[in-house]
């Protein structure tokens, strides 16, 4: 029941916030803008919330990993792997939406990728770190050992999140991403906040669904073991 409410709420919020992006939010005047159509700024309303919600997913991986090592309860391992998968997808979407934005004219290079931008590189690295997290899980068969080793890597790999977030402050020379000195008009603020809410809820929803999936998988394995299959 709770899942259904969450699902409905997320669906409504995503629809409403997407409507706001396309028909309500203003397009600010952006000095770096070079594209033919300044409306491509609207990708920003998806790009930023998706990026931040991927950080949220990875923070859940980190916390669940710490809790697993402390308590050795399988539910934390399931939470960690579910959050990691959702986070990988969201980081991928961040990279894709950013790439499309660059091509559309965020930067005058007529390209998909700006190799010297630290934020792009650190986000790609974040994506790779959590792909390798999933690879660590594949490389171990015994469930207890898999949970333990991947929890250690889930803690170590979390370095990617502050790194990606702080990159534009650490290596200031090379980035397209401004450090937020955002003075939005009220309708921009409403749109971006609603988008944040929508994507945070989406992360929670996806993780909850994935956890349900994993639990069913566990149950199936148990039944198979009982029947000796």
């Amino acid at each position, binding site marked *: 029941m709770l899942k259904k409410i969450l699902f409905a709420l997320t669906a409504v919020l995503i629809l409403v916030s997407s409507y706001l992006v396309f028909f309500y939010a203003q397009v600010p005047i952006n000095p770096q803008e070079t594209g033919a159509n300044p409306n491509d700024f609207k990708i920003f309303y998806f790009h930023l919330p998706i990026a931040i919600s991927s950080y949220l997913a990875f923070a859940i991986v980190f916390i669940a990993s710490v809790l697993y090592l402390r308590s050795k309860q399988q539910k934390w391992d399931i939470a960690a792997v579910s959050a990691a998968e959702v986070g990988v997808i969201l980081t991928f979407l961040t990279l894709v939406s950013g790439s499309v934005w660059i091509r559309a004219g965020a930067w005058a290079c007529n390209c998909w990728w700006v190799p010297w931008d630290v934020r792009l590189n650190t986000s790609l690295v974040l994506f790779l*770190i959590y792909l390798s997290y999933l690879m660590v899980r594949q*490389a171990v068969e015994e469930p207890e050992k898999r949970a333990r080793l991947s929890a*250690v890597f889930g803690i170590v790999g979390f*370095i990617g999140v502050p790194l990606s977030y702080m990159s534009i402050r650490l290596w200031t020379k090379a980035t397209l991403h401004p450090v937020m000195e955002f003075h939005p008009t009220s309708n921009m603020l409403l749109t971006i906040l609603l988008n944040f809410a929508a994507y945070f809820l989406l992360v929670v929803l996806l993780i909850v669904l994935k956890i349900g999936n994993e639990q069913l998988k566990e149950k199936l394995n148990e039944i198979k073991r009982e029947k000796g299959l």
Partner: protein
Amino acid sequence: MKFLEIAIKDLRAEFRTKQMLNSMMIFALLVIVIFSYAFGNEATLEVKVLNTKVVDLLAPGMLWIAFTFAGMLGLSRSFASEKEEGCLEGLKLCPVDRSEIYNGKVISNIVLMFLMEITTIPVFIVLFSYDIKNIPGLLVVVVIGTFGFIFVGTLLSALTVNTRTREILLPVILFPVLIPVILSAVTATGTMLSSGEFSDIAGELQILAVYDVIFFVVAQLVFEYTIED
């Protein structure tokens, strides 16, 4: 100080055969030789726009590729060699804290890395007829960078030793986590090689030092989980 005993044991075993050390050194030399041959005469050309030579732009990346790839050879054997004859079980039976094993391994790995680096840099100087502007500065960067590399590398080496595909998995999961070290070390090395002002690399040294501290502490906390059964 029990970790020193473990480090001495490792080094004594290593210097009996010098297997690891030889292959690391030869591998690093080969990388430099291959680069020197591949770049050929072009390396000495001037880049007018930047007022440097081509080799100045390539050298830092080349050195760190040699260091990290050769170091990877040592790391992947560091715990794998303990797997033979149940040596790891013996180590775990030692009446010391588990993190002492990690500290011991870190020290022996660092010694091997330094020996490899100390022989690689002169070869680099000879093959490229290179004039390093600030040798003490370069050494500082290399030392701090190597610490970061080994702190993470030793932890992940212990993590992968229990997996099915250990030698293959280690580089795949280590490099993404290492990116902050490689990024800052390469930039700092470039400055030390060409212009040689210490104040120019304060930012990079800060990142490296913070990274070293974070991972040293994290490894102390989580190492025991990587080798427990």
